[in-house]
């Protein structure tokens, strides 16, 4: 039987060892997940994703389009998605900003697609080749109106591969756009990893299953049936508030019901959507919650802190939204405080704080000079905090 990760396996250097660039791994994940439509517009530091798709998609009979801008790119992806095609686009901050209106449309029309945002320093043109995590809240709230969001964050090259696959599956399953956040470091680094680790993530409800059976054929009512063009039902698809017929409605009751259903299909499946990893469970006096590149610093800090006698727990989040409410609240009950290192001014720390503040103190550690937070920085801050809390 053919392996489902055939595109990845073509990258092997020697037997089972791989060395892949992050952006390339993302494109390979998309191909292995069945993405057959890509529309994009070049932008640093995400262009390699598009370049790989340009080369590889035609070879598998897919469609690659370089569009006139990022707005057209995501709109073309949504158009393809409405015909049942699995579509994806990739961009960085300025392009992600341009896509926001259409992301709202995809949420409203329940059109599955994947948007990869390889974050760079902003706002505006910022520093294009410099890593950042400044788009976290934009990924959550970038488009207007009350809406749900599924946002994943990649911390290494293996994540770029397997989270892209997870994003495609989630998009298909929940019939909505899914955003994958990476940063310049992860996008441009080359990293070795074993194909075996492309396998699984820890989930609150068990392990994530990457195989195609993940997309259940019969959907529960919580997720709307697809509006698929060309399938005899010739549907009407609209960004207006609509009822189950797909046609617009101004009925207040139906409007609320529809919007609540959009939210509920995500919130009710939080256990399925929240991918995470926790190190040193129950052994820490303090915890570090991190995602993306900062999660790597946090993992390294864990080892350093152990050597220095500070017991730390590390919660590495792969899913940022929907918020892993239960996971964070359980952690908050266990530790004296939570430190959140981020390459922004505390965007995710605010989310964690409002979930955890009844039980523990949440401390934000932001860095916005374009450099990573080092493991040493984290351990020093932890030591400072432990000292502070002991003397208090």
């Amino acid at each position, binding site marked *: 039987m053919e392996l489902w990760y055939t595109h990845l396996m073509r990258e092997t250097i020697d037997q089972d060892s791989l060395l892949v660039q992050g952006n390339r791994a993302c494109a390979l994940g998309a191909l292995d997940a069945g993405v057959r439509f890509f529309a994009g517009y070049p932008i640093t530091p995400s262009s390699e994703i598009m370049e790989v798709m340009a080369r590889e998609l035609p070879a598998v*009979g897919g469609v690659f389009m370089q569009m006139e801008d990022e707005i*057209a790119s995501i709109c073309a992806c949504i158009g393809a998605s409405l015909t049942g095609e699995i579509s994806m686009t990739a961009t960085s901050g300025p392009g992600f900003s341009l896509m926001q209106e259409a992301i709202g449309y995809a949420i409203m029309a329940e059109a599955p697609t994947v948007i990869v945002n390889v974050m760079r320093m902003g706002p505006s043109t910022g520093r294009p080749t410099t890593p950042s995590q400044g788009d976290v809240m934009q990924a959550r709230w970038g488009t207007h109106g009350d809406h749900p969001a599924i946002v994943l964050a990649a911390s290494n090259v293996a994540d770029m591969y397997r989270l892209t696959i997870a994003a495609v599956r989630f998009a298909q399953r929940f019939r909505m756009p899914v955003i994958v956040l990476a940063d310049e470091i992860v996008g441009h680094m080359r990293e070795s990893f074993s194909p075996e680790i492309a396998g699984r993530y820890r989930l609150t409800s068990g392990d994530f299953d990457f195989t195609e059976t993940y997309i259940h054929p019969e959907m529960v009512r919580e997720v709307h049936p697809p509006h698929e063009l060309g399938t005899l039902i010739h549907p009407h698809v609209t960004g207006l508030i609509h009822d189950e017929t797909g046609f617009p409605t101004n009925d207040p009751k139906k409007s609320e019901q529809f919007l609540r259903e959009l939210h509920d299909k995500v919130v009710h499946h939080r256990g399925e959507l929240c991918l995470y990893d926790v190190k040193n469970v129950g052994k820490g006096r303090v915890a570090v919650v991190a995602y993306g590149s900062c999660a790597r610093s946090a993992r390294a800090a864990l080892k350093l802190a152990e050597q220095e006698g500070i017991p730390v727990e590390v919660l590495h989040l792969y899913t940022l939204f929907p918020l892993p409410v239960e996971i964070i609240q359980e952690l908050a009950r266990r530790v004296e405080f939570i430190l959140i290192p981020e390459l922004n001014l505390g965007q995710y720390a605010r989310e964690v704080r409002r979930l955890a503040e009844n039980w523990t103190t949440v401390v934000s550690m932001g860095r916005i000079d374009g450099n990573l937070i080092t493991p040493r920085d984290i351990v020093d801050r932890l030591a400072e905090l432990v000292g502070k809390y002991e003397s208090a």
Partner: protein
Amino acid sequence: MAEGESSVAEQEPSVAEPRTIDHYLHTDRFPHIWCPGCGLGTVTAAFLRAALELGLEKDRTVVVAGIGCSSRAVGYLDFGTVHSIHGRALAFATGIKMAHPEFTVIVLTGDGDGAAIGGNHLIHACRRNLDITTILFNNNTYGMTGGQASPQTGMGGYATTAPFGFDEPSFDLCRLAEAAGATYVARGTSYGVRQLQKLIRDGITHPGFSFIEAVTQCPTEYGKRNPPKGPVQMLENLKEKAISRKKAEGMTPEELEGRIVTGLLHRDESVPELTASYARMLERIRKSADE
């Protein structure tokens, strides 16, 4: 992609009676939102009569619209219909057509939707020569939002956002489309409905990007502020101003000032259509992989 998939055509019962455009309409969605005297329904009907002539299959035809009065047409049409976002109908349509070249894809847009916010997508769609038929309903204003100036309001025209008269020139949208690479360009009016129907029909059968400008009237918003007032007067004005391309050929620019040149304005069969050339590229790649 499309290749190898079952293309199940809708089984239509054979009917003895000739069909009317109701065949393609969700009449249960009526009354429609358009004002009395509005020309958008007339243009939509011309499109639907063209569709009847061609026997377009509901399930193999996708009509994509943006935002605005004209784009609301898709809410009444019994095809696969996409009411997309402002200005982006052509970008959605590009995704649909590239993913499923076997679909007949029609874009309905307006002068604000297609020429202002969507102008960039329009020129690039023309350039790509993808087999999409775009009908741009030009009523010189933003009707839905209450009569603001559009790129087609014209010098000296009045609008809620041009209370002292608009001081910007308009596009010649057909020349724009031709220059950008559209391979079928035509213009009609909501007065000349038979001509418009024929132009749309030929546009749909043309294998490449077809652009049809349908000049029409908005008595409620544009007509309220600009002469002539009233729908009948506006239609008569269209009749008087319309001139065939043939007649226009012998006329000076001065004589043509204010006239609406109608008919087929440009047609080029020599440019490869995008889905076809993309399919040929896939074939080339497949062959070289086999070797």
